[in-house]
């Protein structure tokens, strides 16, 4: 999280310098008085005012330098580094989500293409099946027609043969009848009489 320094910092500088100057002066005065009172007995060093002025002076310098270095160099730089990192991470995450969305789209497109191809294949198979069935039907019909024609022909042949045969039988019958009549009566009937008699017998049954 980046942090910005404020306008108050400038007032803070004045405050710091002023208060330190006052303290240094006060400490120096205290040191003078202390030296005036006694000098021989070494006091506890942290409470010895002789060093207060020097300590304050150098603390002011070092702390001011530290504050300046931190507020002007280190902290803005670290803030920008962290901001940049947060941005980079955010950008990478965005990119990743984008990529993922793209991958999902592609997967969907693939699925769609696959389904379409499957449907097409089914259609083609159906069509092939239908044409095959039609072709075989046609062939069957042709064969059946051929066979029917052949059968009709055969039946016709049979019929003619039968009529011819029947004709022969009648002729033979009339011949035989004429011969029988001749043998019985000794008188040959005419051909027309014989055939009429045969016809009569045939119709009688």
């Amino acid at each position, binding site marked *: 999280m980046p942090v910005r320094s404020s306008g108050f910092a400038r007032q803070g500088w004045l405050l710091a310098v002023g208060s330190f100057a006052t303290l240094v002066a006060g400490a120096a005065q205290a040191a003078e008085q202390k030296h005036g009172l006694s000098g021989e007995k070494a006091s506890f*060093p942290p409470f010895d005012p002789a060093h207060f002025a020097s300590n*304050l002076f150098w603390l002011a310098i070092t702390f001011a330098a530290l504050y300046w270095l*931190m507020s002007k160099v280190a902290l803005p730089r670290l803030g920008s580094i962290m901001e940049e990192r947060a941005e980079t991470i955010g950008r990478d995450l965005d990119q990743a989500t984008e990529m993922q969305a793209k991958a999902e789209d592609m997967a969907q497109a693939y699925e769609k293409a696959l389904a379409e191809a499957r449907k097409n294949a089914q259609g083609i198979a159906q069509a092939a099946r239908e044409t095959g069935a039609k072709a075989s039907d046609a062939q069957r019909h042709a064969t059946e027609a051929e066979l029917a024609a052949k059968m009709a022909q055969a039946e016709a042949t049979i019929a003619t043969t039968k009529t011819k045969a029947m004709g022969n039988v009648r002729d033979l019958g009339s011949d035989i009848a004429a011969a029988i009549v001749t043998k019985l009566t000794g008188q040959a009937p005419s051909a027309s009489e014989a055939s009429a008699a045969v016809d009569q017998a045939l119709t009688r049954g």
Partner: protein
Amino acid sequence: MAAGGGIDPIHQFHIAPIVELKPFGIDLSFTNTSLWMVIVLAVVSAIMIYGSSQRSVVPGRLQSLAEMAYEFVAATMTGVMGKEGLKFFPFVFSLFMFVLASNLLGLLPGSFTVTSQIIVTAALALLVISIVVIYGIVKHGTHFFGLFVPSGVPGWLLPFMVLIEAVSFLSRPVSLSLRLFGNMLAGHIALKVFGGFVVVLLGSGAVFNYAIAPLPLLLAVALTALEVLVAVLQAYVFAILTCVYLNDALHPGH
């Protein structure tokens, strides 16, 4: 180190000038305290500035350390004061790092603890309180003094409450500076006393004393670990109390 045959545990706090410097009759000599202040400045700057000089998105060790310090202080400040308090971030950060580095560097053998000088901790505490008072008055005017008037107190009790609040406010810089100073001073004296025991026992010549000499040594080791904890904790306490006080300046209403 040895004073009158014994070990002087106070010697470590003795201030000795390195470079004499006396402008206008004021003793501003560069002493061992000053030297260690400069070392503290150098160490903190090295970590924070050199550490962040790579500006790498994936941080190295030193940069991680710098970032950890940054985020720790920023999190502490937002925790106490909210986002608004981050306007004091450079100040609190400098204060925290200065105290932390002083405390920790002071634990090195032969070093000098800057924060064991009451004038140093008092100056830092006064700096904090001055910023609180001046920022509070600049930002909120007389409303800032509402800090001393708790709400919902019966009228006859109000003067006492104001008095108590005022005393508690005035005691803040005292407690803030004495807490840090006392912890550092006492810890170092205790370490020195136990370290001194080891030397005295070994130097006594009696066999029994040789036998028990490791005991204070062990204690000194344990105390050193404790002092590391105290050093970090006191820096944290100093920083978080600074945040609490600054929060009063930001939001004076109780």
